[in-house]
């Protein structure tokens, strides 16, 4: 069955515009295809998607090889902000980009909320 990518993009767009400090988000398949995205200009959706899926896969490998168990999320903290990758069920991976001023606790709550919303569309 075809995935409603339009609806997924709308949810992501709303998430990005309505959540303080969130600068972009993308939902991608585990094999690196973009399902929906609202990214800062200049970021290539295809490249971001492939990178996100590879990163999650690499994280899973690290979890296994280095005995860290199953991976809940991958967190990249840079001096200009955060990049957070979270699994969204079996069929998708959510990438969220946030500025350095984002409060991590709030951000995680918002990600949890949008994940629930996205999963409903993917079902």
């Amino acid at each position, binding site marked *: 069955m*075809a*995935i*409603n*990518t*339009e609806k997924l993009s709308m949810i992501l767009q709303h998430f990005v515009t309505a959540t303080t400090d969130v600068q972009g988000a993308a939902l991608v*398949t*585990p*094999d*690196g*295809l*973009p*399902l929906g995205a609202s990214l800062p200009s200049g970021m290539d959706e*295809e*490249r971001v998607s*492939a990178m996100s*899926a*590879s*990163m999650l*896969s*690499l994280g*899973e*490998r690290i979890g296994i090889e280095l005995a860290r168990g199953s991976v809940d999320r991958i967190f990249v903290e840079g001096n200009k902000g955060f990049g957070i990758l979270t699994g969204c069920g079996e069929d998708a991976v959510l990438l969220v980009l946030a500025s350095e001023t984002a409060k991590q606790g709030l951000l995680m709550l918002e990600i949890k909320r949008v994940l629930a919303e996205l999963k409903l569309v993917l079902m």
Partner: protein
Amino acid sequence: MPNVLRQKLGDFNSILCFKAAILGMEEALGDKACAIALTTAGRARGKKLVETWGLDNSSLSLDDLASKLALALGQEGTKLCIVEKIVTEGEAIKVYTSETLCSAGELLGSQRKCTFTMGVVWGSLEKILNKRLRGVHTESVLRGGNHDVFEFTHLD
């Protein structure tokens, strides 16, 4: 074909070396991450190919695309694989290939899937059709098939 890139050795290198590079990447990054990277690289290559032909968003038939790909990737081209035919079955587009680089040198029964090769076909189809597709390697010469078959369905 473009100008020869290496004066003495020519433009082709051994599959053995290429495979060794892939195996090394799989060892370091894991099969899945490596497969994603190779498929993505293939898709980009396929899209570029169509761009160089000036055929993006064109109304090229699948038969004509098969001929174009066969020429560009086959014996007279880069020798990535032989594209035998492209057919539609219901909503799916099936691409039949043989002698793919990805399956070359593998033992019968190997679970290896085509990544870069499938990606090239995938990217070219997406560029020609101007549609986003999802690709799966459905039949393999390594697992009893007569061809390596890639099946594409519309993503949205």
